[in-house]
């Protein structure tokens, strides 16, 4: 029986984070949102942190 291919969680989490981050940036650039450093910095740090966390946890498995 053929085994299902294992999902690469790091790529999955990083991809989802980047899509969400990109959508926020798109809304800002199109004028629907007005982002400042006060709102953007936590989002950027959270995005990078989530990717690093996924990378680190992915290595432990």
């Amino acid at each position: 029986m053929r085994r299902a291919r294992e999902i690469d969680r790091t790529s999955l989490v990083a991809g989802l984070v980047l899509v969400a981050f990109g959508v926020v940036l798109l809304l800002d650039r199109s004028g629907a949102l007005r982002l400042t450093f006060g709102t953007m910095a936590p989002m950027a740090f959270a995005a990078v942190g989530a990717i690093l966390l996924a990378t680190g946890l992915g290595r432990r498995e």
Partner: protein
Amino acid sequence: METTSDTPVTPQPDPGPRRLTRSSRDRIIGGVGGGMGRYFGIDPTLVRIGFVALALLGGTGLVVYAAALLLVPLDDEAADAPRSARDRGVAIGVAVALIIAGLVFGSFGFLFGGALVPLGFLVLAGLAVWWLVSGERPSGSPGTVVRRAAQGIGLLIGCGALAVASFFASGLGGGVVVAGIVIAAGAALVAAAFVGGARWLVLPALAIALPLAFVSAAGIDLNGGFGDRTERPATLSELQQSYRLGAGELVVDLRDLELPSGDHPLKVRIGAGHALVLVPDDVCVASSATVGAGGVDVFDRSGGGLDVDWSDGRRAPKDTARLVLEGDVGLGLLEVAHNRSHYDNDHGPWDRYNDANERNAACATAT
């Protein structure tokens, strides 16, 4: 009676001199601290603290660590046969390159105090990038470590180029397209996750996304040209209500202008750089500005940081001209002064605060 032992005394094999090796078990980066701690019989944590302290005090710690990483073998390798001639050649090549770099850069004071510190950080950054992308520790033979560091640095340079391109494209109005590329890269990563993954794509995607985020947060608009520009209207008809520059230095010199009493609106907009408005002594200036990242200096008042919302409302006495300045700066500095010489002298811009002329003296009251 004389007795002798029947068992022959077999001489113990000579263990040879104790060898300094990197530890393959007790390691954070390359096992240098663990190996040195074991060799000298001290706690490896103390060795690591020493490396960090030396790295902060002139950068010597980075150089010593990098040299140990290249030249000291792992303990697993020490038990094996001697290292290959190729690895030894790589190590010697790196050492020769460092010596040549030292001769090129001149004094060793500069070398250890200046050039090697960023070089050391670059090598460590390359190894960190390699670790992030490949998931493999930066250990192994010197040749392997050098190769991985070089690949990491190459990726880092490529991502740097992407980041610069993203910054300018976003600042010049292509932010929607750049955001679309980020979303597409994210979608590609999600799709690739089900067919083995594409971790190599994470770093380039971040290199595109983060500059766009910076441009968005700071509100940087690079349209309006690049370089240094000086505007010096001599008559009221030459005075525009708005001046704009993408990046560089914009000087609006109003000192030749005789402004009649009343309000005179002026907008100054700069994406990244320095905007300087020079006004006559007898003109009152009321100012407001938004600055993404940077500062505002209006005569003897100043403010700065991120998301700066500046307001300095002033009233002018009757029969006095008032310049109502509205500034918009993405990244940089907006300054208002009576005299430019304060920026050109050797003492720097802060010297202006000691000058009695640099006051908004034509205004009636401060609010």
